[in-house]
């Protein structure tokens, strides 16, 4: 994504985008490197500098065929090292805020607990923070937050940083009766998504300094004033609609972004459908496989010499059933939710693009009006029009930076997601193979046992 002079704006000797510092970035504070989510807490990305070469030369793990568990463990370790190495390389190339400085804000969401009160029942999660930033009073925090609180944070961030992409939250409303809000699975999935959300915010060079985030992470009780927040949000959108400016010409790069997002969203939907279909087929396969194993067991009952081999087969089939169950559970617990969450992420990005269009439209509208008036009665271009221009240019800059980050995150996330899927399938087949190999060992032992008995 090249960062050239923005088109559609009157050239007025502006600085190139790359050199415009964001108003909110503290001039002295070195910007953070945008390292994507690392689920292993406390991982130091600067150590990735040394690993960078090893990881980048070929993106493949050293061992590809070896005894099952050893190689897969190795691969998993490789995987953790790589994202940082790649991200750093990319970040240096694209992101104006990139640096190899140590991250100094770590957040985690875990430990879900159910709370029952007279009015309602809800789940809270523990939000743990470790930081060396001076914006925080203490180096460590541990607070409990519920979904509402995350939602509050998100709204606050959107309001105060309209030019930035705010990561999405998992779905707010859940149809009662269809999904059990308190089932372990649901809570687990939601918690992972909340964790991801918070990590993305904490990793963002601008959003992570937002005072609302600070409050969210450290305050004992969030003084939310929800009502006001809602109003603010409504007001914002009303203003946008009432603005009613029409966009003349969207710069090509933003058009490209929009098109990309549309197609990408489509493909995500397709992949979701395929994954669901596979799950369905696997479930039916599992049902038949169970019955199949049972027939071997019942046949074993009427045999003598063949009893052990038949029971052995039944046992191996049963092991395969277990392995298949694990695979399916994994797909539905880990793969599908992350996929769906990316749809939300894509929607958020589209939203930001729309807002950018709006602000550009507003600027163009005002500028046009001002120019006309200047032509008529030589009124100079008002300050607010210049402010609008600033706003647009800031927006464009922020958006491009966020886009790069989004692309980079997306690449890492999908790399992880898909390799995870491949891994799970490999493990499934490894387990099945082991089950059948042990059967052969069992039967062949018996064969040699019989032979020695015969010769004796």
């Amino acid at each position, binding site marked *: 994504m090249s960062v050239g002079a923005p088109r559609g704006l009157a050239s007025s000797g502006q600085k190139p985008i790359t050199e415009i510092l964001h108003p909110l970035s503290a001039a002295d504070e070195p910007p953070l490197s945008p390292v994507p989510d690392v689920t292993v807490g406390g991982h130091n990305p600067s150590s990735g500098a040394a690993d960078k070469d090893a990881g980048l030369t*070929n*993106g*493949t*793990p050293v061992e*590809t*065929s070896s005894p099952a568990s050893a190689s897969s463990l190795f*691969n998993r370790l490789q*995987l953790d090292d*790589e994202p940082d190495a790649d991200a750093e390389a990319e970040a240096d190339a694209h992101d104006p805020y990139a640096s190899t400085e140590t991250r100094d804000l770590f957040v985690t969401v875990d430990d879900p607990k159910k709370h029952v009160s007279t009015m309602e029942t809800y789940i809270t999660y523990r939000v743990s923070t470790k930081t060396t930033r001076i914006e925080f009073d203490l180096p460590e925090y541990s607070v409990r937050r519920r979904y509402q609180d995350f939602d509050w944070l998100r709204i606050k961030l959107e309001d105060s940083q309209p030019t930035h992409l705010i990561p999405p939250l998992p779905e707010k409303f859940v149809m009662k009766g269809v999904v059990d809000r308190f089932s372990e699975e649901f809570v687990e999935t939601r918690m992972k998504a909340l964790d991801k959300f918070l990590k993305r915010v904490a990793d963002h060079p601008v959003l992570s300094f937002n005072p609302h985030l600070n409050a969210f992470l450290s305050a004992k009780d969030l003084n939310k004033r929800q009502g006001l927040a809602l109003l603010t949000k409504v007001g914002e959108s009303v203003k946008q609609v009432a603005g009613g400016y029409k966009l003349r010409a969207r710069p090509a790069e933003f058009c490209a972004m929009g098109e*990309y997002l549309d*197609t*990408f969203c489509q*493909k995500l939907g*397709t*992949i979701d459908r*395929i994954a669901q*279909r*596979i799950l369905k*087929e*696997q479930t*039916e*396969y599992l049902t*038949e*496989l169970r*019955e*199949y194993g049972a*027939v*071997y067991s*019942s*046949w074993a009952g*009427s045999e003598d*010499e*063949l009893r052990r*081999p*038949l029971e*052995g*087969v039944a046992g*191996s089939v049963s092991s395969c059933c277990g392995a298949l169950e694990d695979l399916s559970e994994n797909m539905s617990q880990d793969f599908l939710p992350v996929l769906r969450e990316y749809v939300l992420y894509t929607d958020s990005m589209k939203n930001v693009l729309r807002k950018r269009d709006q602000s550009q439209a507003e600027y163009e509208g005002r500028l046009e009006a001002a120019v006309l008036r200047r032509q008529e009665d030589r009124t100079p271009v008002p300050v607010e029009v210049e402010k609008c221009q600033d706003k647009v240019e800031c927006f464009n800059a922020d958006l491009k930076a966020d886009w790069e980050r989004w692309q980079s995150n997306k*690449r890492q996330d*999908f*790399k992880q997601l*898909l*390799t995870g899927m*491949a*891994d799970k*399938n*490999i493990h*499934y*087949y*490894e387990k*099945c*193979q082991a089950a*059948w*190999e042990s*059967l*052969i060992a069992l*039967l*062949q032992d018996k064969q040699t046992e019989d032979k020695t008995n015969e010769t004796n």
Partner: protein
Amino acid sequence: MRPGSATTAGEEKRMAEDGKEESAATGDSDQPAAGLDSTVTTMVEEGSTLLRRMEISVAEAEKRSGKNSVNMQETFTVYLIETRPMDAIAEGRNPAPDSLWRRYSEFELLRNYLLVTYPFIVVPPLPEKRAEFVWHKLSADNMDPDFVERRRVGLENFLLRVASHPILSNDKILYHFLTEEHGWKEVVYDTGFQAKADSRLRALSATFRVRNPDKRFVDMKHYSDELQSHTSQLLRARARVADRLYGVYKVHGNYGRVFSEWSAIEKEMGDGLQSAGHHMDAYAASIDDILEEEEHYADQLKEYLFYAEALRAVCRKHELTQFELEMATQDLVSKKQQREELATGIVRTFSFKGMTNKLFGQEAPEQREARLKLLEELIAEGEESVKEKTAECEEHVEGGWVDMQRFKEQKDKDLREALINYAIMQISMCKKGIQVWSNAKECFLKM
């Protein structure tokens, strides 16, 4: 083997054949059973089953067209049977095989002949006439090349089993089947086995109560029911599993397409995605071969499903011979009783003759004499009959028990091997799966 016939093994095959010919011609199935003396055992020991003297194979299958018995055009498949003498091969010579063509119906005819002629033998089954236990993608068409190929293998297996059986392999009709293409059918019909075949079928489905069946045969019959039930259940379950597995693999092919489309809008990720998509296509395609190989396992199960039927038939035959013996014995007893009554004038049992005597007076002495004489003749015949049937029953039990033991050993060995091979097939499938997903994973890592 009638007394006086040659009883040494090997070279006496010719004489044995003669013996069989005669016995076959008279439709007397007892003769071969009588061979269950030292003759057969020496034959087995010296290993002179046909298979050891002759290499047999069903080499090819071909489609033919011709007019059938009602003068209508039909298409059918013929199979090429090739034979070569073993001693020539052992000596290192490589003679061209003798060969002839046979169709499935001729194999059926051979088997029916064997069933009738050796009712105490568990006769090896033929491969199925029509494709059953089919999972949806597999064709149920008899003309389908895969089906024809599997049938060819099944027919060869049948011939090998028959030719290696200690008793069946010496049958002359079998030998002719393998060596004389024309006129074989007439020779079979000339044995008169058809009449026996019809009565056998009737007997198999008849219901009668046996008082004292051999317990071993009762147990074996029960076992044959279990074997039949379990193998057919297994075949059905396996077909359903195959169907589902096919679905799982094929749906993955969709990933190939979507990854390809997605890669078009990506820069760095594009190559990795595209290659991964190809591996997904390969994965989806791999299931066809995997399931085709599994059909071989299904065929092995089917053989024993049909074997169960043959086993059951031997047990039923025992029940029938035992029943006939019991009937004959009972008949003899009642005739003897009648004689006693006639001789002593004491009526023990109710009879119409007795009643009419009481009502209309005794009969004349000449009449009584005549009746007594008739009874004596009938009793003599009856005793002969009981003797014959006892012998028949004993022979059947002896021969049947030996062959059922042989069958059990064969079954245990074959099925055990089949299960091991099935496990090996599964391992191969797993290895393929690991390979494909590892390849895909490498592509993902390059994204």
